[in-house]
């Protein structure tokens, strides 16, 4: 059994596109203490990258602002909250639709929220137009022991 320890971290950085890699690598380093598989780690990095990119190109529309990431480890799972104080999302349901994008001219695929939803166990979007957007994601990191016993279930 894995030790069910709790841990927390908060990260704040400018909405510059070269911070996308910094954000996902930092979250991945924090999650590493749960001993995730390579696939779990890769899924989390991708989800974080999508959320942070959204803050930069949609929330702040390339103006400078602060992006905040809060991570919490609780009962073997990782909770990630990524927020901005940008322009907010008018229609969250539309934004979550696969292939929907307001920026096709930037060659955006419209797959950001779809990827976050399918790579993480839970994903929630809260937004207030003019105030900002908060994406909350959760993923259970299965310990190696659980993975072995799962085959007998």
């Amino acid at each position, binding site marked *: 059994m894995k030790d069910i320890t709790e841990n927390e971290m908060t990260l704040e950085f400018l909405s510059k596109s070269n911070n996308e*890699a910094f954000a996902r690598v930092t979250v991945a380093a924090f999650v590493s203490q749960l001993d995730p598989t390579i696939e779990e780690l890769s899924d989390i990095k991708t989800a974080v990258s999508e959320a942070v990119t959204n803050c930069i190109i949609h929330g702040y529309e390339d103006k400078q602002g602060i992006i905040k990431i809060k991570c919490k480890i609780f009962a073997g799972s990782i909770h990630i909250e990524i927020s901005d104080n940008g322009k907010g999302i008018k229609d969250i349901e539309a934004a979550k639709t696969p292939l929907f994008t307001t920026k096709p001219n930037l060659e955006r695929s419209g797959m950001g929220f779809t*990827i976050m939803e399918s790579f993480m166990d839970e994903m929630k979007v809260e937004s207030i137009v003019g105030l900002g957007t908060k994406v909350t994601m959760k993923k259970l990191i299965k310990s190696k022991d659980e993975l072995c016993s799962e085959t007998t279930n």
Partner: protein
Amino acid sequence: MKVKYDTLDKLLVLELTEEIDHHTTEKIRRRADYEIQRHIPRKTIFDFSGVTFMDSAGIGMVIGRYKVISMLGGKVAMINVKPNVRKIFEMSGILKIIPIEDCA
């Protein structure tokens, strides 16, 4: 990105050597479009062997190049796609128009 062009076969190989996200696609796009318009290749291959990470920005980048290449009458394929990158392409459905091939 490393670029190889075979004049006889009119084959352009774009070997991607960095993590692919919104930040890096801008540079990749500019260089790729330059090479494509310079050579007008019969076939363009994106070699992903050096790509350890890609998010949805990669989908947009590949589809964008596909549009440019198709307009110029060329074909597109991808090789050496790692499982984590393949997962993202599969989700987007673009493998139906841009195949992953076994080797160059």
